[in-house]
């Protein structure tokens, strides 16, 4: 195992607004990514996965946001790093791909300029060299006729093209870390598969560390080596992909897997969603945030009974779990069906 590119330790993000109770969007999140490794941050919307990624990149607004803990990139802490240091790293050593490619591209600037500006900022290149490199990049991410596309504006491209262009920008300077925040959510299913395949190829080819942020378990199954499941700002389960799909331990993870429609289930059989919504979460200080929605919940899931908040503890080799009453798997079922169904 190579030394990790990115180590996040005890990361917490608090939003403080004048006259309002501060809210913890992310709380005590720790994970690391090694070169060539892909990890998934999985959870429902509002669970803090996007805020985590923005905190890593230093893209959260400075005012009204409090980031604590540490984000070490190559061993250097980024949390308190000055703006110019972060700007030097972003785009060059760490790239990011966003969810909605149309709104993430500047509508009044040609695609070419939006690609070359990264190169011109971080690389010693002439404009002509940057232009050639941009053509090569667009070609590499699978955009046909890249020379012509460079002159076009975002609205003239299809959704898949736009996402490819965004990926080209993120990869322009061959970053060692790529964070992809729901990169396929806004795309058609066929395009989704293409984009995921593209990302996978890039990781394999260049040894880039990839942090995949998604709510889509299919994406996780297809791409990620390790998975961190988040709920209400905390990691509640960490496992290798295979273990997670075959033997989910956190009832929330189990619920996520069960709520994916399966091809081999009886037609007309009801889907099994998780009760309630993320808004029903209780503060972690009062116990397990998922307890109000959990079928396994018992009295000691609440702090007032157990006397402490539910900790994240090791749970077998390579696994971590935050749950007092996890799902039990007496005999390991064959993993193929579970992960196959999730795809």
């Amino acid at each position, binding site marked *: 195992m190579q030394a990790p590119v990115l180590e996040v330790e005890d990361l917490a993000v608090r939003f403080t607004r004048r006259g309002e109770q501060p809210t913890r969007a992310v709380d005590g999140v720790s994970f690391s990514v090694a070169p060539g490794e892909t990890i998934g941050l999985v959870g429902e919307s509002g669970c803090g996965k996007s805020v985590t990624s923005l905190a890593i990149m230093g893209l959260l607004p400075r005012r009204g946001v409090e980031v604590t803990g540490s984000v070490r990139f190559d061993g250097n802490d980024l949390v308190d790093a000055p703006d110019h240091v972060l700007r030097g790293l*972003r785009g060059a050593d760490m790239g990011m791909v966003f969810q909605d490619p149309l709104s993430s591209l*500047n509508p*009044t*600037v040609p695609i070419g300029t939006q690609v070359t500006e*990264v190169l011109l900022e*971080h690389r010693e290149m002439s404009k002509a060299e940057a232009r050639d490199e941009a053509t090569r990049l667009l070609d590499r991410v699978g955009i046909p006729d890249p020379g012509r596309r460079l002159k076009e504006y975002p*609205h003239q491209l299809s959704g898949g093209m736009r996402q490819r262009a965004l990926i080209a920008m993120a990869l322009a300077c061959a970053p060692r870390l790529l964070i992809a925040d729901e990169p396929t959510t806004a795309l058609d299913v066929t395009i989704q598969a293409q984009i995921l395949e593209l990302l996978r190829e890039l990781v394999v080819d260049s040894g880039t560390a990839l942090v995949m942020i998604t709510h889509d378990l299919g994406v996780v199954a297809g791409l990620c080596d390790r998975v961190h499941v988040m709920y209400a700002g905390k990691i509640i389960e960490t496992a290798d992909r295979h273990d997670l799909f075959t033997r989910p331990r956190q009832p929330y993870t189990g619920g996520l897997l069960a709520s994916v429609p399966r091809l081999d289930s009886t037609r007309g059989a009801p889907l099994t969603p998780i009760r309630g919504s993320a808004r029903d979460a209780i503060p972690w200080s009062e116990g397990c945030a998922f307890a109000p929605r959990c079928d396994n919940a018992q009295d000691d899931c609440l702090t007032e009974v157990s006397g402490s908040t539910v900790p994240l503890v090791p749970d077998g080799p390579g696994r971590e779990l935050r749950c007092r009453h996890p799902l039990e798997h007496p005999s390991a079922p064959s993993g193929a069906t579970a992960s196959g169904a999730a795809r």
Partner: protein
Amino acid sequence: MLRFIVRRLLQLIPILLGLSVLLFAWLRALPGGPAQAALGERATPEAIAQYNELFGLDEPLYVQYFRFLGRAVQLDFGNSTQYGRPVTDVFLERFPGTIELTVLAMVFAIGVGIPLGYLAARRHGSFLDSASVIGSLIGVAIPVFFLAYLLRLLFAVELGWLPGSGRQDVRIDATRVTNFYVLDGLLTREWDAAWDALTHLVLPAIALGTIPLAIIVRITRASVLDVVNEDYVRTANAKGLAMATVRRRHIVRNALLPVSTTIGLQTGLLLSGAVLTETVFAFGGVGSTLYDAIRLRDFAVLQGFILMLAVVYVLVNLLVDISYGLLDPRVRVR
């Protein structure tokens, strides 16, 4: 693009026809009429009838209208009763003054308004922000003639820093080439004439530019506040671009789209004559000419000026639309 422009110019025809009918009917409906205005209140009915016959005013209205129209298409709007010269000549003499005034007022409004609006947005909630919001509210609310009087009283009458009336000192014997006094001074190398004409523009331009300034500050501020929260600005920051590049290419460029529309509309409004400001400063542009024409019932000037100003207004709006297409590729006309 060319087809777009031609189509817009063709749209001018019905606009002008409609306007000319309205104008014609409105002026004929005014109490008194041209004869009364020309001959005075004590004119005898016989004299009025003679005057009407002389100028063809006894003929049916539609005959008069079509005769007016026939001359108007040849840019002949008749003679002004107060100046005794063709209306077109008067217009060509006065309109350059209004253009000069408008240009300076808009330079002032844009030059101060956009930076101020940008800073207010970037320091959202600060003292500067509140001050600019309140200041622009006052700027919009203050009656322009009142502000004009205040400026004139303070800087022209009390302090004597700047001239308070006219377009140029009458003692300067300037050569007229284009009737743009500042430009004429530059063309003929009469630097003192150009400088003097410029100083005459300063106070009315500030008075006139206040409302556009206030509007530009508010729209720039609101627009920048919107744009900084856009995903593409986050993308630009994620690319590690220098703050100056993010600001210029990704924030300001997009934030100025709605501002450019406002600038165009305001320029069109100012060009069609700032009656109040020009009157306060006795500035010989189209605004004060219109004021005099209404006061003295100079119908030929009113008809001619209003129609020509309508053409100018439509042309300015056409320019705004074209420039909008250049700025925003999404609405680019093909």
